[in-house]
């Protein structure tokens, strides 16, 4: 067991956790509980907004999985990963002021609220709630597992105790703190990620004897590692470019991101978030993946991709610094998990319970139910993560792309195209999800591109077709 790393890792996590609790104490009660718990009373400043976007988006895949792939594929995978810099500005600019103005007018708290008001259709609400709950629930379980594995490999605790510690921490502060606590902790976590990856990258470059030496070494191992085409030349320009859709512009449609684009205080914070977000996302993604690619020249022969980050950190840094730096990926996982947890909970409480089961519920009861649901959800996910069933792992494969294919047009065209209506939205969601799942299973990578591109094109056709053919008047 690595005591120094363990102590600093948990120390950092404890500081984050305390902030969450303190923030929850400061929650004002002049706004409605729902607005406050799920949206932080629409009061985010620029820095917090940028950081919470980054931290929510930069999940286990970008911090543990991504560098592992870069380790195997070389600079070509770094090229693929920097497409994510677009999320720093594109998401906010597209949803931007319009989303904030309109959701405020609708008094919308969740993405489903927006869809409900925009399309005035119960079917749209139910279908979108169900897809959010199913897809994000499985995405969350996968993050849970990633968090457990990270603690396990760094501290030497067993997977189950690692998972247990992880889950308890997240659950307590999400349950009691709500959105404001989550975004505040996100801001700290985002900062840790930013500084942590910078420190680690510098340490890696020093350990490798400078950039030219590292590149030279990679060239000796396999010259393809320093080309844009991946270790065995299989990363084609078309395939890599399609990631602009999957992890770049498509991110607009992820509910956990969209909800943040309606939570800021004023346009000044929005403008600051754009500037900060772009540089932070860009630097973090670039650093993380360069670290992964460079690690190959320093520690060749790591077989499990997920272990690249912890092992390289422990190798090039003093153990206690490694603990703090690795708090960054852990923080990333935690912040993804906490926002997903909150989102699934808000979908159930706000979009289903209050909309259809009990609209006359009072504030006290909503408060109890919200916290209760959040806690219960967390416990269920924990039980799943202890012994993950195949279904969850299968569903998680579809989570990001599936949600994008389902929601991108109902949101974007719902905002910018007045003729779009509920028929368009419904057919777009159905076509998006079905084509994504079917293509993914039976005909992967059509046209040499990631499945998500084809599904998004099909769902666009469905949205426009559905809206034009079934005019609202014909009802």
């Amino acid at each position, binding site marked *: 067991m690595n005591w120094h790393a363990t102590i600093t890792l948990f120390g950092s996590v404890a500081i984050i956790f305390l902030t969450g609790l303190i923030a929850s104490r400061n929650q004002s009660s002049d706004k409605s509980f729902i607005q406050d718990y799920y949206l932080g009373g629409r009061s985010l400043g620029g820095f917090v907004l940028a950081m919470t976007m980054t931290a929510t988006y930069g999940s286990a895949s970008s911090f543990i999985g991504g560098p592992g792939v870069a380790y195997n594929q070389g600079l070509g995978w770094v090229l693929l990963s*920097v497409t994510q810099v677009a999320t720093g500005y594109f998401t906010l*600019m597209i949803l*931007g002021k*319009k989303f904030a103005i309109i959701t405020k007018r609708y008094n919308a708290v969740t993405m489903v609220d927006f869809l409900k008001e925009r399309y005035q259709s119960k079917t749209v609400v139910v279908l979108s709630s169900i897809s959010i709950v199913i897809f994000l629930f499985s995405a969350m379980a996968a993050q849970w597992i990633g968090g457990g594995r990270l603690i396990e490999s760094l501290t030497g605790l067993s997977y189950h105790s690692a998972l247990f510690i992880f889950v308890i921490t997240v659950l307590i502060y999400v349950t009691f703190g709500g959105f404001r606590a989550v975004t505040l902790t996100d801001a700290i976590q985002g900062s840790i990620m930013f500084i942590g990856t910078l420190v680690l990258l510098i340490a890696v470059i020093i350990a490798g004897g400078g*950039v030219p030496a590292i*590149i030279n070494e990679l060239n000796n191992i396999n010259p393809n590692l320093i080309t*844009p085409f991946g270790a065995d030349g299989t990363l084609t320009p078309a395939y890599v470019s399609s990631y602009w859709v999957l992890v770049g512009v498509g991110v607009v449609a992820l509910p956990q991101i969209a909800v943040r684009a309606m939570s800021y205080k004023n346009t000044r914070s929005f*403008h600051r978030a754009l500037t900060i977000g772009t540089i932070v996302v860009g630097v973090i993604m670039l650093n993380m993946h360069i670290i992964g690619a460079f690690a190959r020249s320093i520690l060749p022969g790591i077989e499990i991709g997920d272990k690249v980050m912890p092992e390289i950190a422990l190798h090039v840094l003093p153990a206690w610094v490694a603990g703090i730096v690795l708090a960054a990926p852990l923080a990333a996982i935690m912040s993804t998990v906490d926002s997903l947890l909150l989102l699934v909970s808000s979908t159930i409480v706000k979009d289903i319970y209050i909309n259809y089961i009990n609209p006359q519920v009072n504030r006290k009861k909503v408060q109890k139910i919200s916290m209760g649901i959040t806690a219960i959800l967390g416990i269920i996910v924990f039980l799943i993560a202890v012994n993950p069933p195949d279904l969850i792992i299968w569903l998680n494969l579809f989570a990001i792309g599936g949600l994008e294919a389902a929601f991108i047009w109902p949101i974007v065209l719902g905002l910018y195209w007045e003729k779009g209506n509920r028929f368009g939205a419904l057919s777009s969601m159905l076509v998006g999800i079905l084509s994504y799942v079917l293509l993914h299973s039976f005909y992967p990578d059509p046209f040499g591109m990631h499945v998500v591109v084809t599904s998004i094109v099909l769902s666009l056709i469905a949205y426009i077709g559905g809206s034009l053919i079934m005019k609202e008047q014909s009802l």
Partner: protein
Amino acid sequence: MLTQHKDYRIKIANREALIGIGLVLFNFIWWFGFAYGLGSGDIAGYDYIFGFPAWFFYSCIVGVLIMAVLVFIIVKKFFVEVPFDDEELEKR
């Protein structure tokens, strides 16, 4: 009165969304052009800048920095502050 004000905000919002699309297109062309323009040749013929292969340096490292600078400038120059509260709107 109120609708008129709302119209002016929506117009600004639409323009800024178009700027977002323009930026992402520029970003993509820069990224694609340097990566595959400089990186497709023979590895023996690669140029290196600060030790990085030139395609990587321009496409990824400079690409990220240039986007950060561009976003900063564009937000400062072209993005307009608008009020979100209806009361604040009425006062204008």
